[in-house]
């Protein structure tokens, strides 16, 4: 938190994207989070990703629940649509919004409390419905806004700031999402923008529900010795297992790879994912294999990061429901509500 707001003046050589916008144009208002909060770095990564993807800010809807993480949509994309929902209920709002207007890009930001405690049911069903959105879970293992109680993602045996030991098993959102059939599962670290920015871009471009679990240290309540979500611990234990580039259909592949290195996966919508680095024998399109690998690494206290699993099939909500391509908000009223006669006709089919 600062007293002055970030001055509008910017570097004269700051590049612009094809919309004529600089990164600064994708900012929101000044963050009121604690100095050094991992969430602010994620905000910066979202700003950079949206700028690089050349998103039109007014074609983005940002949604959140309650908590430190859920404050952050105020701090990016000031000109986008926004909805700050009841605690843990952001997925329901996102589902409804996406159903009504499939034309927008949906970006949900939530935390480990909002997603894994009060809102875990909502999260599960948004994944199950495969709502077309990027769900960023800012995971710091602690309830920062209420001063440092363990959250549902706190590791067994990790300690709170005053030394209490956590005796409950954590919920790992990555394993949860894999179990629930999520088609895009990734993990990253707020302190590693080089990895996080491409993942956010891929998650925004992915057709269907994309989850990125981002370890995001809480400097005020969970950055001490004994924490397993501190800057130091995360840096010492994370392992970039899977490095991948997401390539849009129109984009030319300019990076060259040596033969036998990496692997390209073609998606149903024409996008391609180029895996630069995967562990020996790892198959990022094999859900069971990914699950087993992650369980295995957890035993040695390693935190694998990267795009851990991707589903190449099209199972997104609108596809499953068979809705029209035109966003429902743009469909004429008469067509959308064809009247009593049409309703009677539908009812007749069930008699």
């Amino acid at each position, binding site marked *: *938190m*600062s*007293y*002055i707001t*970030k*001055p*509008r*003046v*910017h*570097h*004269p*050589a*700051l*590049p612009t994207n094809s919309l004529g916008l600089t990164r*600064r144009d994708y900012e929101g208002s000044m*963050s009121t989070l*604690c*100095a*050094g*909060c*991992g969430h*602010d*770095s994620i*905000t*910066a990564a979202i700003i950079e990703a949206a700028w690089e993807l050349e998103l039109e800010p007014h074609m983005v809807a940002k949604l959140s629940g309650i908590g430190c993480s859920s404050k952050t949509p105020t701090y990016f994309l000031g000109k986008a649509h926004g909805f700050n929902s009841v605690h843990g209920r952001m997925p329901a709002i996102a589902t409804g919004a996406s159903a009504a207007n499939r034309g927008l890009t949906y970006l949900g930001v939530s935390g480990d409390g909002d997603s894994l405690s009060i809102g875990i049911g909502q999260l599960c069903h948004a994944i199950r419905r495969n709502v077309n959105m990027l769900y960023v879970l800012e995971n710091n293992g602690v309830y920062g806004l209420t001063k440092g109680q363990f959250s549902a993602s706190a590791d067994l045996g990790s300690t709170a700031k005053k030394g209490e030991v956590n005796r409950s098993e954590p919920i790992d959102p990555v394993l949860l999402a894999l179990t629930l059939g999520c088609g895009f599962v990734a993990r990253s670290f*707020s*302190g590693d*923008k080089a990895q996080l920015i491409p993942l956010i871009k891929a998650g925004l471009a992915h057709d269907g529900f994309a989850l990125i679990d981002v370890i995001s*240290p809480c*400097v005020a309540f969970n*950055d001490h010795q004994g924490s397993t979500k501190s*800057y*130091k611990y995360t*840096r010492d234990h994370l392992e970039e297992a899977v490095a991948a580039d997401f390539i849009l259909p129109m984009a030319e592949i300019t990076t060259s790879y040596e033969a036998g290195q990496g692997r390209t996966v073609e998606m149903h919508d024409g996008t391609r994912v180029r895996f630069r680095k995967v562990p020996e024998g790892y198959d990022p399109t094999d859900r069971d294999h990914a699950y087993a690998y992650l369980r295995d690494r957890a035993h040695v206290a390693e935190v694998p990061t990267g795009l851990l699993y991707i589903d190449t099939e099209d199972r997104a909500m609108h596809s499953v429901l068979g809705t029209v391509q035109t966003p429902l908000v743009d469909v004429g009223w008469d067509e959308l509500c064809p009247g009593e006669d049409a309703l009677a006709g539908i009812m007749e089919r069930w008699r």
Partner: protein
Amino acid sequence: MRPTDTSDPHYYHRVVDCQWGCPAHTNVPEYIRLIALGRYTDAYMLNRKSNVFPGILGRTCDRPCEPACRRTRLDGEPVAICRLKRVAADLRDDDIRPLLPAIPEKKNGKRILLIGAGPASLTVANDLMPLGYEITIYEKLEKPGGLMWNNIPQFRLPPRVLNEEIDYILDMGVDLRTGHEVDSMAAVLEEGWDAVFIGTGAPRGKELDLPGRWDDPDHVHIGIDWLQSIAFEHIDSIAPRVLVIGAGNTAMDCCRSAKRLGGTDVKVMARKPRPLFKASPWELEDAEGEQIDILENHSPTRFLSENGKLTGMEFEIVRWHEQEGGRLKKEVLDTVVLPCDEVILAIGQDAAFPWIERDIGIEFNDWEMPVVDKSTFATSLPGVFVGGDAAWGPENIIWAVEHGHQAAISLHRYCQGEPVEDRPPYGQNLVSVKMGLHEWSYSNDFDGAQRAEMNYADLRERLKSMEVEAELGFDIERALQETERCLNCDIQTDFTGPLCIECDACIDICPVTCLTITPDGPEDEVRLRLTVPQIHPDQPLFASEPLPHTGRLMMKDEDLCIHCGLCAERCPTAAWDMAKSDLLVPYAGLEAGQIHPTRSGAPLEVSA
């Protein structure tokens, strides 16, 4: 990459562009803050410490600080530093004598002669009198000040301002002998001085010996001589149509003077295109504001006269082409004749030493200039020093002042029997300006205001005489508005690497994208990885030691930092702090940071 040593006083000095650009290292941001606080006398005294003549320079300085000002790179217009200096001089207490250094009653027994009473010699006197020297100045004219009074017209520099600041020095007990022209250096040396300083300026205006030059010599003038005649009140009028040849600052003083003495059609004729003019942009604007035409690409070829009376001049209209090696070659497009009644030549000036015998041990070079050491200002004859325009040709007042400071150090060391080549080191104070959680002891928010405009005296009024000062100076409101434009570049973003946890907070908040955390490597390679590429590679680039978590480096491109302090506010571990760097400058007999006791015994309080 080698980590930056910020304890070297010159690293942070370079970040303070204005102070780095100022030959005398005037602490500009600090005096601007003092003005903002209404402490005009303190601002004046801080100025005086380095540039000696704040009132004079606040009106006439060549302002090397302003093109250097970071604000120029950021939004195109520098802070009006020079005009703020004048504010300090205009609004200060009337009597600052109690704050001047005390002069010892008992002298140290050393007698020093200064030749010429211009800004260089006066600075030497200013620095040496408090040390107990007996100083004598020989001045060939009737008044002291050198070009400050005989070349700069009164409408730019009123005599009361000039005289007051000269008197502060002379009243220290300097033995000034006016009307004393030196015609033999050998004779001077025989007078038995302990040391001699030559500050005789560059008083010889260049001649333009084209056909017809001597047909009507009474109506063709050498610019600096003509200005001097006005100062002496030997000339008080000029014919209506005047051509001024040359486009330097002297030409601007000539044309504006001509406009006041009866010139109705005054033209400045320049051989080169405008971007190559020697005159400062603001002096060109001031001249044009007084309805003077400035014609570029006009190369004079001859003077025209009828029956021994000047009638005009012929010019080639030219276009310039850059040759290999940067030399310009002209192409003549046309010729043109401009009628006129008088011509003023302002095409440059030289130092001249017909009065120094060539066989007395002072070595001269092929251009008939004495060989002078760049750092000690010593000639080849021990005990004889040269400074100001006399050393290497025409510069400006602020350079003469710095020459004076350096020569004073040499004179003092020479008289004390110490080697003059050993120059006293600079120092630095670095003090945190943190006042509270989000509070700093300076105004850290960025003010997007445009540069404040100067108020001028009414055009008709000011063109009536030489005495009406053209610029009115800033009023308090305008001054305060302008002080807020200063970016406080001396409030440094000071980094302590071992505290950094690499959370990126500083990088994310920086409004001007100065910061980068990147793996170590060769400097050329690391430079390419900056968040935004350097657009001014000559600007300082900070590199930390390897950071504790990952061994990467914190990099800062100092170029466009607006010193808003947000990096330090956002830093959870106080690895970034805002700290005021104060460059400590040594003067004659004073180590870096030391000051003379004041006349009244009152402390000099200058910190903002």
